[in-house]
């Protein structure tokens, strides 16, 4: 039971990020919550491909006659991290334009005003 701790950690991180997106009132805290959600999903991808007693799948650093962990989920996680970066950059730029237009960062005020 204690050896399966990574899966439980992924579930906890996902719930913390979801709580920040739903229950917060500041726009920047919502953006940080979306980034935490993304980190939880990338961690799940890498933890899925673990082989007990394996080494890093690079021939320059591994020793003689060792077994390797699965290299394919690591390659897919690289792409997912870069896409998360693009999403966060666009989200923060839209928040800057919103602040210039409305003058406040509170989500309930922006919903009430009609710009």
């Amino acid at each position: 039971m204690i050896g399966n701790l990574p899966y439980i950690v992924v579930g906890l991180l996902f719930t913390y990020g979801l709580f920040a997106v739903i229950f917060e009132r500041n726009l920047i805290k919502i953006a940080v919550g979306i980034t935490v959600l993304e980190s939880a999903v990338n961690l799940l991808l890498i933890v899925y491909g673990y082989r007990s007693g394996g080494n890093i799948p690079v021939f320059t650093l591994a020793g003689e006659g060792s077994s390797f962990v699965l290299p394919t989920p690591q390659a897919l996680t690289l792409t997912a991290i870069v896409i998360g970066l693009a999403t966060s950059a666009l989200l923060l730029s839209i928040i800057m334009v919103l602040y210039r237009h409305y003058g406040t960062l509170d989500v309930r005020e922006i919903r009430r005003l009609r710009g």
Partner: protein
Amino acid sequence: MKSKILFFIAVLVVAGVTWGAMESVHPFGFPGETPMDTYFVEHAQKDRAANNVVTSIVFDYRGFDTLGEAAVLFTAVSSIALIFRKGGRS
């Protein structure tokens, strides 16, 4: 106060469901038969002459996904350049 109690129940339910769902595919640390990954590890040094198996997967065996990712980066940069333009109202 009621939202905090609901939050704690949701934490336990989601953590337990994640553990149960991933455990039913294979136990943690023993993936079983993986024909694609054994092929990659055995043939990457002979055919593609690369020491790093992960880089040879990203750029050679699955290079088409990297092309899509470069397109995503390019689209993000052009969208940010479009948001912050100086308006010349005529």
